[in-house]
């Protein structure tokens, strides 16, 4: 469903992503791991249009998407969360989720200002679907609160709900467990599995190894912008290069 073919990007002299080929199967939960600065987030930015590759192709559902603007890629059904939570702080929890429905609704400025019957119907649907997304992550009872006052764990859940409300076929989660305590991380793991149950393909960047090993079926390992290993969790855990580059050094640090 998402395929990166020989993708490269350098920032000046720094080769952030080098000749990476990666393919995400529909219906899978796939993870990308690697040390800080390995290019994981850069890869996410490439897949979602926030960065354009200097070489290589990115194909989503048969269309080449490299270099397209983020909103156009999102319109195809790729949603994402951010490493540093990016909520709409001056809006309520419900309104945040309602923005998620933007992709699937149509009202323009004029019909919004005039509140035509068609627009009212659409608004009602937006509200219902947004509430359903909040229920999915367990935030429905906070719908009227300001998004800014949520604790971090719930902010991350709201970011997922917002992305979920856009009914994506592919969801990219950028370090969703960072800053979460053990109980919250468990809840997140269940959430990721539930997303897959709903037919959403999940691509995950994560440092929490326990979580990654538990939910991911396939793990790709990046180091210095290059893909050094790819395979199921068990194989990755034993991979000598991965232990040297990541699992090992991370513990020593």
């Amino acid at each position, binding site marked *: 469903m998402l395929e990166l073919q020989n993708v490269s990007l350098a920032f000046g002299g720094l080769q952030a992503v080098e000749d990476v080929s990666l393919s995400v199967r529909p219906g899978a939960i796939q993870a990308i791991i690697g040390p800080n600065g390995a290019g994981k987030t850069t890869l996410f930015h490439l897949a*979602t*249009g*926030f960065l354009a590759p200097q070489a290589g192709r990115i194909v989503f559902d048969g269309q080449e998407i490299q270099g397209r*603007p*983020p*909103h*156009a890629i*999102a*319109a195809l059904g790729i*949603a*994402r969360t*951010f490493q540093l939570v*990016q*909520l*709409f*702080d*001056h*809006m309520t929890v419900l*309104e*945040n989720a*309602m*923005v*998620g*429905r*933007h*992709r699937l*609704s*149509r*009202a*323009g*400025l004029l*019909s*919004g*200002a*005039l*509140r035509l019957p068609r*627009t009212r119907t*659409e*608004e009602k649907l*937006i509200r219902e679907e947004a509430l359903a997304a909040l229920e999915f992550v367990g935030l429905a009872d906070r719908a009227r*609160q*300001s998004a800014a*006052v949520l604790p971090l764990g719930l902010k991350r859940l709201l970011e997922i709900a*917002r*992305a979920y409300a*856009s009914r994506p076929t592919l969801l990219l989660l950028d370090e969703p467990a960072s800053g979460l305590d053990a109980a919250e991380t468990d809840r997140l793991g269940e959430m990721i599995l539930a997303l897959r149950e709903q037919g959403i393909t999940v691509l995950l960047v994560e440092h929490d190894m326990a979580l990654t090993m538990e939910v991911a079926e396939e793990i790709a390992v990046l180091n210095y912008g290059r893909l050094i290993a790819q395979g199921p969790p068990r194989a990755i855990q034993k991979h000598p290069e991965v232990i040297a580059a990541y699992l090992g050094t991370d513990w020593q640090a």
Partner: protein
Amino acid sequence: MKGLLVNRWGLFAAAVLLLAGVLKEDYYFSLLNFIGIHTLLVVGLNLLMGYGGQISLGHAAFFGLGAYTSGVLTAAYGVNPWLALVAGLIIAGATAFLLGVPALKLRGYYLAMATLGFGIIVFIVLNEAQPLTGGPSGLAGIPSLSLGPLALNTPRRLYFLIWATVGLVMALSANLVDSRLGRALRALHDSEPAAQSLAVDTFALKLKVFIWSALYASLAGSLYAHTLNFIAPSSFTFMFSIKLVTMVVLGGMASIWGSLLGAAVLTVLPELLTAFHDYEVVIFGAILMAVMIFLPRGLVRGLLDLWEFRNYKRQGGRIPV
């Protein structure tokens, strides 16, 4: 919520009618008319700036485009004032489009810079294009508006037109900010990347709202021209653009009703301060500073906050959420 809104608009209409019944002198109607015209400008600027986070320092220019299109077409060419008003909307909208496309492509304060320059250019053109605009000495002989046989040639008659327009524009704007694109606009203000990741075409949306707010300004300009029957470039200066920004901030960013209050306070204040005219600027500045320091979210929100804080202390410190 819905009942509350109905009440608000009902109260608004009642207040407009009540003032019309109570007030006798033309002076007060004139003053209220200017408040109304300023409110149109401030609501538009607030959509762009308060809700969307995009600063325009050239809104006086769109106001001037509307005023001069109406003024020149009606005074010099005898065009029907309502047609001239529509022509003003088209010209202001097209200008906003041409200015917005390059300026909004860039991130940061490029719109502020571009509109600042644009405002100064328009001011110079209004002064220099003497054969068309009358130059610095102004353009006289602008006819009044009329509704069928009724000539809107007194402040009192204009009052109803202007405040019906204000009510309509405020209602449309309140609907807008609570609609799909209104939410997208507020969203891009908070986090542009997150909005884009949810399929919001942020460039297109900023451009649309910029044009939309220029249309409000042009509408205000046309009404202004027909209210005064005379216009001069000195009404459309950079300082006036700054004053509009101040009205937005004073009333409250991202507040439709705050826009009305900000426009009202900063329209009435200079009138009250004429008695101190040597110190007008000083007093004006001091009041502004005080509001900025003590009510940074503007008058409406600021007073609401104070009210909530009082309740909060009364209830023994329970944090209101």
